[in-house]
């Protein structure tokens, strides 16, 4: 509630002159004079929105806090390139969200200035930018899924280290009847029907098939297998990231990339915890974006004149908060 009844002693309220001369404006009794006074100088909707946002601050603080604590407490954490994160895409998404924050502010200003048409246009633009953000996010998720990075097994094909468990997982995958057929097909394909890259990859695949089946297998052999399946991109000593976008430039990309049906287990040290935190944080953020988009769609049904400015302001407050969370998520996930 925005207004609370406050009893004021005689002579202290704005109508004191009428009390001083003994009359009580026809009240006829000597009870306290009640007057409405707002509890906080803001509208009810905005108060509720801010209360909600203060709970949201704690919600995301818990998520971000656990991420930071998990990440810095972990003995090994994957580098952004190990888990196929692309910094330019993340920076682009940051830019998209900042733009959408500006457009919703402009929608509010237009509505206050009684320019309903303009307000609608800005609102529509905000909706489109939010959708673009989710689209890019979906594309990024797809890049993770295609590399077998899921938050949980059985879908996740990420192993923490090239140990015996990893070796047996690779053997199990190679022993899958579907894969056996595919491998036979690949072995029987004449070399001139394959690209040079595929021929070289086929030779390497045959080599690792022998390696995982060998009884005198060494830990280093399994590291070689893991490196062949999905190499961990390295940063050049000069800090050059050129060509790192899709793994190593050209010939050095993993067998999983060259033969997408292969879907062999891969090794990313620390990758499982990374996947859990990444999908949890970005997933909750994406849900918040989605809710914002629903709110904008509903608001587009209004006239968006000065009378709706309060609604736009509240939706905007929520949207800026979503932007705020991403401002912290982007460097923490993509650049740390």
């Amino acid at each position, binding site marked *: 509630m925005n207004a609370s009844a406050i009893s004021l002693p005689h002579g202290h309220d704005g109508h004191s002159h009428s009390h001083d001369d003994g009359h009580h404006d026809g009240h006829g009794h000597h009870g306290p004079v009640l007057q409405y006074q707002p509890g906080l100088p*803001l509208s009810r909707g905005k108060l509720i929105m801010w209360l909600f946002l203060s709970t949201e601050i704690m919600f995301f603080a818990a998520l971000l806090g656990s991420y930071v604590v998990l990440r810095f*407490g972990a003995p090994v954490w994957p580098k952004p390139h190990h888990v196929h994160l692309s910094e330019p895409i993340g*920076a682009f998404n940051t830019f998209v969200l900042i733009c959408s924050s500006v457009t919703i502010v402009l929608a509010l200003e237009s509505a206050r200035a009684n320019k309903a048409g303009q307000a609608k246009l800005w609102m529509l633009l905000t909706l489109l930018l939010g959708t673009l953000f989710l689209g890019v996010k979906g594309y990024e998720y797809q890049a993770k899924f295609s590399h077998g990075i899921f938050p949980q097994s059985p879908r996740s094909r990420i192993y923490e280290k090239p140990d015996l468990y990893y070796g047996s997982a690779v053997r199990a995958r190679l022993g899958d009847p579907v894969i056996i057929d595919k491998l036979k097909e690949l072995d029987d394909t004449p070399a001139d029907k394959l690209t040079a890259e595929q021929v070289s990859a086929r030779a390497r695949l045959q080599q690792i098939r022998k390696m995982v089946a060998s009884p005198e297998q060494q830990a280093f052999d399994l590291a070689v297998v893991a490196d062949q399946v999905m190499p961990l991109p390295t940063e050049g000593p000069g800090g050059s990231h050129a060509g790192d976008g899709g793994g190593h430039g050209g010939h050095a990309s993993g067998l999983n990339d060259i033969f997408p049906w292969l879907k062999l287990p891969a090794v990313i040290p620390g990758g499982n915890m990374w996947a859990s935190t990444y999908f949890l944080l970005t997933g909750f953020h994406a849900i918040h974006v989605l809710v914002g988009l629903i709110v904008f769609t509903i608001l587009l049904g209004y006239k968006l004149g000065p009378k709706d400015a309060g609604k736009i302001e509240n939706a905007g407050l929520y949207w800026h908060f979503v932007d705020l969370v991403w401002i912290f998520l982007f460097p923490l996930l993509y*650049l740390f």
Partner: protein
Amino acid sequence: MSDHDIHAAHAHGPITRVGDIPAHDDHDHAGHAHESGHDQGHGGIGKYLLVFLALCGLTTMSFLTYSSVWPWRDQPHVGWAFMMAVSCTKAMLVVLFFMHVFWEANWKYVLTIPAAMMAIFLALMLVPDVGMRNRMVSQERALHMARTSDVRLMEQAAEAKALAELAEPAAH
């Protein structure tokens, strides 16, 4: 959030922001949905665009740590501290100007400071149980968790492959 409430907020000048001129002309606003009078002479599209440009500039700055121009590549902590400073600046800009907190009355402290303190304590509470969970681990867990030695093993495998590829053309 009816007009009445908003108008009621206006009618009581003394509760608005400290230093605010008491709104004597609030009857002029009767038909408008202006709230708390914060948008009078404060907002302005120019100011928002300025904040937008600052946000873009700051995003570029944090992106700088990723580029090859960044001089402290071998000391990641420098980059982390820098990025957090940039993020906090960006967050302050968004909260103060886009969320209008800069122009709000003192209620903003009531809602934001306790929430912020709770947020900080929440994160700190996680440190002993979660952050230090790997200080003492069982032998079995140590056996199965990834360690820096595994990363080194992977790097050695990659190096061995690179050497083999260098040798390959020579053999032909």
